[in-house]
């Protein structure tokens, strides 16, 4: 009885993890700019990884390996949003403008806007060298 319940809980957790990771993958592939992609990567992917790792911890039972899985879960819960924050902050400091619903810029334009900023930085740096 309790084993059946446990197997059912494992299956539900794995399917939930797969669903949220699918949402995250769709968002990273389809959303318009780096900030919205960072948002879906930090939220949906963290939740998907959390569900899948919880399923693994439930399957391993009480023991050292299960504690390691829980440690991994907490580590991913803390570091994944931090990494996404660092990435989008780097994007902001490089001068990438956020996409809004009323502008017609494509991916290509956003890339060229960031290129101009980057080239400007390199050019002034190179200008100071001689």
């Amino acid at each position: 009885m309790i084993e059946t319940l446990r197997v059912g809980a494992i299956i539900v957790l794995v399917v939930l993890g797969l669903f949220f990771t699918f949402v995250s993958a769709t968002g990273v592939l389809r959303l318009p700019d780096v900030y919205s992609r960072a948002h879906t990567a930090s939220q949906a992917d963290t939740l998907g990884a959390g569900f899948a790792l919880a399923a693994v911890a439930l399957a391993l039972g009480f023991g050292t390996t299960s504690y390691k899985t829980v440690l991994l879960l907490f580590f991913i819960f803390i570091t994944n949003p931090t990494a996404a924050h660092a990435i989008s902050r780097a994007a902001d400091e490089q001068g990438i403008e956020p996409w809004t619903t009323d502008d017609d810029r494509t991916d290509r334009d956003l890339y060229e806007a960031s290129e101009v900023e980057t080239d400007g930085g390199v050019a002034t740096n190179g200008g100071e060298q001689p």
Partner: protein
Amino acid sequence: MPVAFITGDLVTDVFLGAAALFMLLAIAMFYRAIKGPTTQDRVLAVNVLGTNTVVILALLGAGLGEPSLLDIALVYALLNFLMAVAISKFTVERGGVL
């Protein structure tokens, strides 16, 4: 020693099948990592791919009954986080590496 390590066929199949599907989702991230358009997009895609790799390693460790894969997953998660933060800092200070 784990108290009750489930070794039923059903649970093993679920873990291995989920690992295969997670791998498909991880491979889909290569599209964003290659196409870009900005450096931060690539770093973000590789970061998501690394998180998926950690989950795949944990699922394989449970599905194949090899708990040592969890140690590899732990080290991989650490290196993944370090990579994202280091490249973010590097791109801001030097103005783009890719």
